[in-house]
């Protein structure tokens, strides 16, 4: 008995009917991977829950928001991109952020700074070098990136930091030693974060008010920013205070090569 073998035409028709629809998750996954959309979730922080958005290029937003809708709207207004709610951060990213926030500077957290000018990116990258528990003046950043007169612009760039905490703009303070403004919910939060990082904000401000902006060690004759880890290692008996770097240099002290206090200050030669 011969059976009905399909002719070529029938095979072609059958093959043409083999189309499939891509899974609904595919397009969002692609768009997030290439950075044309983001995902977001919340993390705990010393100032309460924070919204974090990320894409394949890195973390794009850290922000306080009342709810998901408010966050999405602000994220879209700032970046022009959609943000999809995720259950949580990808585990690897969560671990990196945790390590970074607890002071491990070897933990690399990629950030997506598209839309920031190259000056703003320089400012943010420089701020990211300040270790946990330490602070530097705005003028220090300006000098370190080769724009010593752009102190006010540095402040503005830090105020527009899209990824606060991850880029620790809270570690940049006013040249007079007061803590200054903070984009993530105001000055009170800046104080809270610095305290959580092990700095005593009240003591720091008291010191600055009393006119101390630099600290030296009598044993090493090195002068530092007061919060530099080398300055803090100096025992009270060996610590010496200076109002200005010029005064320190005159007294025979050389600037620390780690916290580089000479940046941002006209040193009297």
């Amino acid at each position, binding site marked *: 008995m011969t059976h009905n073998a399909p002719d070529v035409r029938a095979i072609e028709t059958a093959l043409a009917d*083999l*189309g*499939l*629809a891509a899974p609904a998750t595919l397009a969002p996954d692609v768009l997030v991977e290439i950075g*044309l959309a983001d995902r977001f979730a919340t993390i705990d922080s010393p100032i309460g829950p924070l919204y974090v958005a990320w894409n394949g290029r890195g973390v794009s937003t850290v922000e306080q928001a009342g709810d998901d809708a408010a966050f999405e709207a602000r994220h879209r207004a700032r970046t022009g991109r959609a943000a999809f709610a995720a259950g949580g951060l990808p585990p690897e990213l969560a671990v990196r952020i945790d390590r970074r926030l607890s002071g491990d500077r070897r933990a690399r957290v990629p950030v997506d700074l598209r839309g920031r000018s190259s000056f703003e990116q320089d400012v943010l990258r420089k701020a990211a070098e300040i270790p946990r528990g330490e602070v530097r003046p705005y003028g220090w950043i300006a000098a370190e990136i080769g724009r010593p007169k752009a102190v006010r612009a540095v402040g503005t760039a830090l105020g527009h930091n899209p990824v606060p905490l991850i880029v620790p703009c809270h570690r940049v303070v006013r040249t007079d030693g007061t803590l200054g403004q903070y984009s993530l919910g105001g000055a009170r939060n800046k104080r809270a974060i610095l305290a959580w990082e092990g700095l005593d904000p009240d003591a720091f401000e008291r010191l600055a008010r009393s006119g101390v902006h630099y600290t030296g060690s009598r044993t090493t004759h090195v002068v530092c920013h007061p919060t530099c880890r080398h300055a803090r290692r100096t025992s009270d008996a060996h610590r010496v205070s200076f109002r200005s770097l010029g005064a320190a240099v005159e007294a025979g002290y050389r600037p620390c090569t780690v916290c580089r206090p000479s940046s941002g200050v006209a040193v009297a030669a």
Partner: protein
Amino acid sequence: MDSDDALTARLAHDLDGAFETLVRTHQDRLYTIAHRFLGDVHEAEDATQDALVRAYRALAGYPVEQVRALRLRPWLATIVLNLCRNRATRRRGRAPLSIDLEQPDGSTRPEPAADAAATPAAVLERREARRRWAGLVRQLPPVYRAPVVLRHVDGLTYPEVALALDRPEGTVKAQVHRGLALLRTAYEAAERLEREEMTA
């Protein structure tokens, strides 16, 4: 100017603004190619995602004129097929993949509108036919499988298949014909087996 020409013009002008349209326009056919080539839902999804990401990065690096001149359909097919071949090579020697049945769970194309009026029996029959032919395509040697899928499942023209596979047009025509002949033989063999089983 067909829709792909309009799209390449937009991509050349504003890649970030136009790329989502490329994803939405081509994701189903790329996923279909990957799925019919690999026969596995997850592998197909990964390969398709990877292909679209690579397409974006390639476009970002191309000069405007090159983007404008791209033949999107065959170009994207080349990318996804290369990734499928790599995956097929990598998984060789590993445990066989789970058999992937045609399921009405969204992993397959929703039934066309005409099917709304189809009887349940007709729907089942069609699903069974899709399952059977998909299985046969998967059994084809890769050298025939790729041109058959591109020509008859994806619907590329012969010049486009030749472009996508970087083979002469005469070669891909011969390979498609040979592939269809193999499919027909395999179909008959399967039918014969089924009849024997039923009469056994």
